[in-house]
């Protein structure tokens, strides 16, 4: 069954934006819970928030913003027909994704070593508001971490397409959509960081 390929870049982008809305709403469910529980337990949230290490959070914010910069530059360079530069920039994004995950791993490990994880004796003994805070913290950053992995996998796959010549100056909507997804991953973090690390 062969349908004639009619490329509709505007349509492809529209579809991608719609998909990004669904991702925002997915995290939106968690942000709703955050706002409701923050209103209910402002003091516990403040106390728990202070236990998070702003240094890790800030470092990861810088890392992700840099990765997004590389991704945006990759789009420009593929449009100029520079395949090697595109691949190098995408590798930069992937490297940043790796660094992000390593920092996240270190941060989570430290928390878990301190006895702060869902269902831990320390949280069960502590104030209910703190338990909810860390429950939300783990599920939100965990879900975000999964999105980092998915986004990195997508960009790696697109990088391979750049290498094979399937994505090039004349046909780069796949790369553009892939980087849109990466920016979403970045954007979600831009909301997570202040909500959990800064404002409490």
């Amino acid at each position, binding site marked *: 069954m062969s349908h004639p390929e009619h490329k509709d870049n505007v349509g492809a982008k*529209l579809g991608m934006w719609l998909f990004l809305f669904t991702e925002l709403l997915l995290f939106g469910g968690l942000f*709703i819970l955050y706002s409701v529980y923050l209103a209910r337990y402002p003091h516990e949230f403040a106390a728990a928030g202070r236990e998070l290490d702003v240094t890790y959070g800030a470092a990861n914010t810088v890392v992700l913003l840099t990765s997004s910069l590389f991704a945006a530059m990759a789009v420009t360079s593929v449009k100029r027909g520079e395949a090697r530069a595109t691949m190098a920039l995408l590798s930069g994004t992937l490297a940043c994704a790796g660094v992000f995950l390593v920092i996240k791993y270190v941060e989570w490990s430290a928390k878990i070593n301190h006895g702060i994880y869902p269902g831990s004796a320390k949280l069960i003994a502590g104030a209910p508001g703190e338990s909810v805070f860390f429950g939300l913290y783990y*599920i939100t950053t965990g879900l975000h971490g999964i999105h980092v992995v998915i986004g990195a996998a997508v960009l790696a796959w697109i990088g391979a397409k750049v290498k094979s010549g399937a994505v090039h100056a004349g046909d780069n909507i796949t790369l553009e959509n892939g980087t849109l997804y990466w920016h979403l991953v970045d954007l979600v973090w831009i909301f997570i960081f202040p909500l959990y690390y800064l404002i409490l």
Partner: protein
Amino acid sequence: MSSAEKGAPVTDGFWQDTGRTGIKSWILSTDHKRIGLLYLYSVLGFFLVGVILGLLLRLELMAPGRTLVDAQTYNALFTVHGVVMIFLFIIPGIPASFGNLVMPIQIGARDVSFPRLNLLSWWLYAIGALIVLSALFTGGGAPDTGWTFYVPFSARTGTNVSLAVFGVFILGFSSILTGINFVTTIHRLRAEGMGWGRLPLFVWSLYATAWVQILATPIIAITLVMVIAERTLGIGLFDPGRGGDPIMFQHLFWIYSHPAVYIMILPAMGVISEIIPVFSRKPIFGYKMIAVSSVAIAAAGSLVWGHHMYTSGMSDTAVMVFSFLTFIVAIPSAIKVFNWVSTLYKGSISLEAPMLFALTFILLFSIGGLSGLILGAAATDIHVHDTHFVVGHFHYVMFGGTGFAFFAAAHYWLPKFYGRRYREKPALIGWALMFVGFNIVYFTMQVLGMQGMPRRYYDYLPEFAQLNLVSTVGSWILAAGLIIMVVNLWRGLLRGEPFLGNPWGGATLEWSIPTPPPTENFEEEPVVTHAPYDFKGAGIP
């Protein structure tokens, strides 16, 4: 009729043109018509599974005490009946099957915007369905929470809730992708001359539905993720012992699941808007209002989820706001009903099978819709909340509404795709039995609910025995009609009389192309010159 014409299924058009053979030409095809039929067979299969479960439920409730199964099995039966009917039949039902079959043709396109994504949607549906079904036989046994998966019970029960919930999560993915595909298709692939004011109303309803699928489904996805996290990690977000709040689960669940009933009913309303003008030989009355009311239902319907929770412990202010908004949604629904009835007025009505089912929709949906207002009003809802009245109401709108619209669509459109038609007389007999049986089953339930019989109870007081018996007998009449209808459709579509040209006299684009449609739908890109219900403009007498 010669045997050559009558013996074998039609093999022209899209039935023939394929590079693949056998099952691969179906499960790997990106043709929207083949995917539509894949969905049709799948949802119909699960519908029949759900029907059997429903009949077993009615059988158990035929008399007080144990009739057929034990209490735990009964809990599993109503849970699985709900999960199968909601997530496997009625949500993908009309949009994914008839939407896929008809919508691209109605807008003059060769296919949807993302054909491969469309196939992926079906695969995700199939995988999700398999996961849901495997939850019945593995782990701690079939889920017993009811299809709503309410915490705290769903977080604690030993049955296999996690796997079932994960299956529903995958199904949600499938639904989202179909929604994205349809919105993009309707924006990008309309043929020349197919302005927004000329879109068939079925397409308008699918457009509104697709937006709800896109905007609401992610919320249930994250909610289900949290239920799984609750069960596996003990994350405590809905656990009052750890500072969580079970009411938040109900909010998040209904933020999706109420709009989801519009995913179920809007495409059905679209089907009715197609059939009524064709069989009344009159342009639809109030095209614009019907189109806009679809969007209005989708928008307002997203703000009324709290009416499921009047007795859950929300603030009284919230109850009143949600009650008010619920009444607002009734307006666009009523607009549609009045416009359909106005279309019928002074029309030249022909009562063939699709029209009978469509008219039944109007009646049953109106009964269901009005009983919905009794539930939407907080004061009366307190009395009938969680009774059989709710069960009756829900089945009136979902089965009497969407179910009958699904049957209407099957009788209206399937001959177009199979090139053969069913026999009219058995279709009428099937319809009559279903209509009578349906009302006996569900109207009785509404009366039982008013008398105070709770829903989801295994046993009941002796004073409810008589009406329960009546309801169960009704379910047999309903099932008999259903069997006649399905067998008649099945035999007719495979071996019936040829169905050629435009016998219904429809003016939308699908009736302008050969039967069955060719693989590419249109030999050359169509230019649309008339409105979808402008029968004179289309040259139909």
